């Protein structure tokens, strides 16, 4: 996939709130813009799309300058596709005509995104004749996403694409969104305040809070330190994040490899051997044992050794860092009592127990 640079240097004051971001994003796959509500995530996306004008600054996408003190390319001429939370389908047109609206106006762009291909990829065929008012939340988002792809942008901007959908619908839409960058050769900026969503989707993460960028980097790196970032209002439980490789599939279970450790999970999302799945294991879901336990329902028992034991002074909890080999780090949160009774110390061999059900989302 081609990599393209999005330079955003914008300031915008609005109703006492000030957005002030100066970042250069190397767009590849999905970049999540993550932060609590009111952080300015949607405002930032609107500025990039050209739906709002910064007070001052500079926005460029590759070699194209979209905004500076002399230039302001209008939204209809920027190559940015913005997906509204509500979908914003045209109520006077059927789904088919909504798709055609976009298709007709981007026919000159040869990027190999065909009308029929989009209808198929997003399973829109059963919806074509319907009016937007008759669609459910998930159907609306799919139709709006299809319409957006048919306007053949070079950058996708998704504003909380899963808002208002129930768990089942989210599960359906998530792999679809995840597949977009590769399927349509299209980098994507997606706004979210849900850590599970970001974990599942993001290749890169930009953390935004109070109108400022707090961190930005590869998803795994950011997610592994997310509990140390100033995001307390999101109540994110500390945890460890891995891209685990599917190494075996037996009946309805799959075996995942993390470092030298193996993990067993129900087979999902039609994953094939050799593919990766992003896992976020909450520290509180990891128990510790000094010997390999027998006669226990927990099937996932990962061998490793302790590299660090830390505590924050105001809690009775300790965070134990366990190396699983190959630089894979798993964290466990246990009480001071547990540390004392098991006599845990740095360098010690340890077994980490993870309840399979806690990994299901």
């Amino acid at each position: 996939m081609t990599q393209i640079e999005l330079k955003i240097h914008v300031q915008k004051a609005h109703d006492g709130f000030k957005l002030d971001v100066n970042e250069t994003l190397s767009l590849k796959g999905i970049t999540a813009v993550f932060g609590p509500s009111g952080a300015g995530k949607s405002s930032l996306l609107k500025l990039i799309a050209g739906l709002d004008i910064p007070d001052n600054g500079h926005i460029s996408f590759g070699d194209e300058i979209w905004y500076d003190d002399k230039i302001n390319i209008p939204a209809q001429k920027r190559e940015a596709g913005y997906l509204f939370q509500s979908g914003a389908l045209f109520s006077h047109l059927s789904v088919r005509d909504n798709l055609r609206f976009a298709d007709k106006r981007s026919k000159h762009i040869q990027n190999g995104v065909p009308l029929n291909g989009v209808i198929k990829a997003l399973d829109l065929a059963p919806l074509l004749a319907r009016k937007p008012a008759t669609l459910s939340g998930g159907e609306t988002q799919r139709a709006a996403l299809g319409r957006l792809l048919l306007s053949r942008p070079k950058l996708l901007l998704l504003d909380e694409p899963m808002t208002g959908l129930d768990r089942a619908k989210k599960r359906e839409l998530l792999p679809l969104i995840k597949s977009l960058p590769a399927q349509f050769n299209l980098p994507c900026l997606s706004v979210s305040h849900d850590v599970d969503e970001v974990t599942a989707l993001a290749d890169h993460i930009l953390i935004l809070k109070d109108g400022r960028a707090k961190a930005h980097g590869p998803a795994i790196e950011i997610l592994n330190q997310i509990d140390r970032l100033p995001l307390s209002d999101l109540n994110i439980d500390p945890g460890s994040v891995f891209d685990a490789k599917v190494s075996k599939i037996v009946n309805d279970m799959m075996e995942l490899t993390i470092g030298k450790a193996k993990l067993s999970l129900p087979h999902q999302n039609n994953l094939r051997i050799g593919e990766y799945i992003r896992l976020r294991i909450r520290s509180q879901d990891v128990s510790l044992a000094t010997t390999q336990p027998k006669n226990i329902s927990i099937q996932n028992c990962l061998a490793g050794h302790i590299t660090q034991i830390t505590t924050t002074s105001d809690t009775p909890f300790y965070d134990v860092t366990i190396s699983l080999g190959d630089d894979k780090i798993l964290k466990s949160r246990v009480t001071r009592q547990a540390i004392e009774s098991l006599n845990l110390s740095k360098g010690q061999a340890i077994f980490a127990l993870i309840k399979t059900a806690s990994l299901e989302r």
Partner: protein
Amino acid sequence: MGPNLTDFGPLWLSIKLALIVTLILLALGTPLAWWLSQTRSRLKPVIEAMTALPLVLPPTVLGFYFLILFNPQSFLGKSWIKITGETLSFSFSGLVIASVIYSLPFMVQPLQTAFESIKRETLDAASILRAGPIDRFMSVVAPLSLRGFVTACVLSFAHTLGEFGIVLMVGGNIPGQTKLVSIAIYEHVETLQYAQAHKLSLTLICFAFAALLCVYIFNRRHPVKIG
């Protein structure tokens, strides 16, 4: 020649005037209503108040000022004679100009309401899908405001048809030129020709009722769309 045939003249003239005025108002009122619906200018309430003035003023006030404005000695009156060779006062052209001003709120207000009910997001979505300003108006705003357009046109048409005071002052009573149906009825009553007055009045009642009925039936079939 029966009285019905002589009364056809004023009736046709009224319909012709109302049609022309509605078309002119559609062309002038649409951009004005659009501007009013979108602007954040401090001038907005001033323009809105000016547009609504004909609703509250007695027609005689407007008629009086139009007479002064159309006078062959005035700037407008003089220029008009230079360009067209005709006077504005007591002419069909004068009636058209006066009626356009008089019926302006009936075009602008329903349109403005319709335009204001379209969400910003809908327009933004059209921009994102590469539609420029005129494209956005024609393919999104206009169809979503269809109900507003029908209401505005019918009201403007019917209101122009029903004028009396202002057209009497500006146009007078010249057959084929400025003798409209409302003036013809007045004349019939003044000369005690009640039968003819009845015929014309009933025709107008039926016409007005049919026009309004069409609007309400249309509105029922096209409920307000949110978008």
